[in-house]
């Protein structure tokens, strides 16, 4: 019977081992997800900073986080939490309190019918469009907006400078993330606004490589992507305002505006369009971590 008693402990033993494992979590983990209880005690000095699942957004979030820490806040990082539609509920219920956003895309999220296109108009409308529980701080001069790009060769051979020049070219394929197909500035928008007919191909995170390799003819690329320079791409002009101006803007919980504005507004002011591209270069070309990039940037700008 001795052996038998030992066995019943197979389950118990495995259970104990696994429980021990599951118990040793990382409380200090910057990527920690357990924010369940942080929603309530926002009054004190703990701020939850989130980021999109986009490396460039994560660098900006890390800059916010380090700037807040330098000012004495305790920061909980909840990075890489997906796209806007995924994390917005978490912001509205206070699970996340600060996240770097982009004015144009954010306005389009709250008000799909908006007609504003200039940076000032977009920002003004956005301030009114956000739900009561949220607020936007000052917008940064840095922009990172969707744009349509072609290779320099293609632009030259077809004489392309503006999106409208694509009209009449047969058999065009536009590449971008899967959701581009459903966005107002996607294939439907191209047809409605510019009379450009395109097929759509989801190219995920390799859109630029797919453009260069010739899989697609036109690529939806973020304007702060360093590869627009390095791969010699031509960004097509958008005179009809298919894309809204999209400046970097912190979206924060309404209850923490007073706490964080003094820290984050100077950061936004110091972040220039070229500066943002440079941050991205450091991440992709130099393969530096967002912590290091953020720390250096804050030091260089005298903000930490």
């Amino acid at each position, binding site marked *: 019977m001795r052996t038998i008693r030992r066995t019943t402990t197979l389950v118990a033993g495995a259970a104990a081992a696994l429980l021990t494992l599951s118990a040793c979590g990382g409380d200090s983990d910057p990527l920690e997800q357990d924010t369940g209880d942080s929603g309530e005690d926002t009054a004190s000095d703990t701020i939850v900073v989130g980021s999109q699942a986009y490396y460039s957004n994560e660098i900006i979030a890390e800059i916010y986080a380090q700037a807040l820490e330098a000012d004495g806040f305790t920061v909980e990082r909840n990075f890489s939490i997906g796209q806007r*539609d995924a994390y917005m509920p978490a912001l509205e219920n206070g699970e996340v309190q600060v996240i770097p956003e982009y004015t144009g895309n954010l306005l389009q999220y709250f008000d799909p019918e908006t007609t504003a296109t200039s940076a000032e108009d977009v920002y003004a409308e956005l301030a009114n469009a956000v739900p009561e529980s949220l607020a936007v701080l000052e917008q940064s001069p840095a922009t990172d907006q969707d744009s349509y790009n072609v290779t320099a060769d293609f632009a030259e051979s077809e004489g392309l400078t503006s999106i409208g020049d694509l009209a009449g070219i047969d058999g065009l394929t536009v590449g971008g993330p899967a*959701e581009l*197909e459903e966005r107002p500035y996607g*294939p439907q928008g191209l047809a409605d606004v510019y009379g450009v007919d395109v097929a759509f*191909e989801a*190219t995920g995170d*390799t859109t630029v490589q797919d453009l260069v390799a010739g899989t697609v003819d036109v690529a939806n690329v973020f304007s702060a992507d360093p590869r627009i320079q390095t791969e010699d791409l031509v960004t097509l002009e958008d005179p009809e305002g298919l894309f809204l101006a999209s400046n970097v803007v912190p979206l924060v919980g309404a209850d923490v505006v007073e706490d964080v504005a003094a820290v984050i507004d100077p950061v936004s002011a110091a972040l220039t369009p070229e500066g943002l591209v440079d941050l991205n270069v450091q991440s992709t070309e130099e393969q530096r971590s967002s912590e290091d990039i953020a720390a250096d940037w804050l030091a260089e700008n005298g903000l930490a």
Partner: protein
Amino acid sequence: MDLFAEAIAWIFSTDTQSGSLPLSEAIATHLAFTVVSVLIAAVIAVPAGWLVGHTGRGREIAVGLSGAARAVPSFGLVLLLVLVFGVTHKVGASTTAFVLLAIPPILAGAYSGVEAVERRIVDGARAVGMTSSQVLGKVEIPLGLPLLIGGLRSATLQVVATVTLAGYVGSWGLGFYIVQGIQIRDFAQILGAALVIVVLAVLLDLLFALAERAVVPRGVRAGRDGR
């Protein structure tokens, strides 16, 4: 259960048939990834498994490699191979990852099928003068078929669910709808695509169930001949 009704409506809506990736094309590419990956895996794993089962050599290696292959995360492998092969070879990169996923169960089905043949039967076959390769070809392989088909069956079911991940790198397979649906929070679309995948899996499973039934009597007959 509104969501289920919406998902069914999504499957049959005309928009789903006419978008950048029509549903029929998504199903076709999804099945193509599945079938091609399992076939390539079978070409590699079946002869290797038979050899291991027949000779009894290399079993440890086969088990070890299968175990390691099982631990490889398919999602990471797809992305890694797309970067390594280049974006013009996304299909090849994805297929390679799915082949790796399919090999362990097929390999196990092949060698365990041969191993499971009773010693007495193999001895009997030798006694009537069969050569080693005749024993393998006429006795062990036919008798091992049910287990081999079981291995192919479980490989296929794993691959048909995992091919979804190919939708993260390009416009194909039912995974495209799921990846897109997550970004635009369209749960009806996610559930609709998932339901189609489950239906495909059930149909493939039925095919294999029929195949397993079809080979059993032949196997039993072969067994009697051997005796």
